[in-house]
């Protein structure tokens, strides 16, 4: 096995093109588990740890560009005000040790339906910046996830960054598991209110082959809010509406029974998470239009 340690992105992309047998590694929190348990023996490890281009984050107008190699720890510490849902989700990943190493780039690289970064990226309208020797492109999060652990990333591409619009209104992330730390989601959900477009966005995780937006539920609640002139006048939203919203979110799931939970439980839990997160965000917006959690 080779250990390839490029110092620059261009060099990494050249290797990525020439060595289809290489597995990229950054935080290693997914890759090393596979190696330690001998679930696969790649021809090479392509260590992205030395690439400054993948580090850090910066603000580009109303969008934050997060380097694919930024550990969760820094998202939690530095971006909670701008990107509440992603920061909340990051706070639930693994443990402090895992958050010091694990990255959003690695979460996207694994493209597990249970990855916690995915629902927040979906409701935030994020785009994933990927690069290869052929050039750079941006993939909307909604088009990135293509199947269980399959994504739109081509074999010769690396993930360079994610571009996440700063939250224009309240956001929430919620996740079901047996304890606070070290939990792979039984199911998860992100919710966002966008006052600029007067729209609701909601996405679920770990309850379908891919993380996904729940468009019918979004249409329904956005319509109900518009009908009540909720954004401007703030007519209260009846419980029945929020309950129906929860049902539509559950209906958008396509869960399976597995060791972590049954399909029925997942649907039921999602409707509860949807109701709760919606109620929290609606309340927060009414409490004087605070934009961040």
């Amino acid at each position: 096995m080779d250990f390839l340690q490029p110092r620059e992105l261009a060099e990494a992309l050249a290797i990525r093109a020439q060595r289809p047998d290489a597995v990229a590694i950054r935080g290693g929190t997914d890759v090393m588990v596979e190696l330690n348990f001998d679930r696969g023996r790649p021809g090479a490890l392509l260590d992205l740890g030395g690439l400054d281009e993948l580090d850090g984050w910066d603000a580009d107008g109303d969008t934050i560009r997060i380097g694919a190699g930024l550990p969760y720890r820094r998202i939690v510490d530095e971006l909670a005000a701008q990107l509440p849902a992603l920061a909340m989700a990051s706070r639930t990943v693994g443990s402090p040790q895992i958050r010091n190493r694990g990255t959003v780039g690695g979460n996207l690289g694994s493209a597990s339906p249970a990855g916690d970064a995915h629902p927040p990226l979906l409701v935030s309208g994020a785009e994933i910046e990927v690069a290869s020797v052929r050039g750079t492109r941006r993939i909307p999060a909604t088009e990135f996830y293509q199947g269980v652990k399959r994504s739109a990333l081509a074999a010769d591409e690396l993930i360079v960054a994610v571009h996440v619009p700063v939250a224009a209104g309240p956001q929430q992330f919620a996740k079901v598991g047996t304890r606070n730390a070290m939990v792979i989601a039984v199911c998860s959900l992100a919710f966002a209110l966008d006052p600029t477009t007067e729209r609701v966005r909601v996405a679920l995780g770990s309850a379908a082959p891919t993380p996904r937006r729940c468009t019918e539920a979004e249409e329904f609640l956005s319509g109900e809010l518009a009908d009540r002139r909720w954004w401007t006048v703030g007519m209260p939203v009846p419980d029945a509406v929020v309950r129906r919203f929860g049902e539509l979110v559950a209906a958008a799931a396509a869960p399976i029974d597995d060791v972590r939970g049954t399909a029925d439980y997942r649907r039921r839990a999602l409707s509860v998470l949807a109701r709760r997160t919606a109620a929290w965000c609606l309340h927060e917006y009414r409490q004087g239009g605070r934009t961040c959690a």
Partner: protein
Amino acid sequence: MRLTMTVNGAEQVLDDVWEGESLLYVLRERAGLPGSKNACEQGECGSCTVYLDGAPVCACLVAAGQAAGRDVRTVEGLADGDELDVVQQAFLSAGAVQCGFCTPGLIVAAHDLLERDPAPDDATVREALSGNLCRCTGYEKILDAVRLAAARRAEVRS
């Protein structure tokens, strides 16, 4: 491959390291530092916790080559000669060690916590140690040890 890194303040050069092995394996089997323990090899138990460039990580999830040129500090690097670090001493005083397998990882995690937050409340301690499992103590004495270490550090400083 050859691996060069700083371990507990001294440069180490190790030969014949296999590219797919973990930093934990290198420390235990090649560098003569068996303090960090190997229990799960999947990031779940925290008994392999070491500082990598100042941040606590699971050594079992760091590929050996990723530590090249970096600074590693293990539980063996916390004591000053024969004098135990205040966190180590507190674990002894509080009786927070039973079989001792989880202890090195917990000590590194608690050490890091007190460096960042010298007077953590209980919720903060629990969160900081949430990546470390202990199957003997029931955790109460571990919490006592961290409280004790925080108090003794405050005493030394005042």
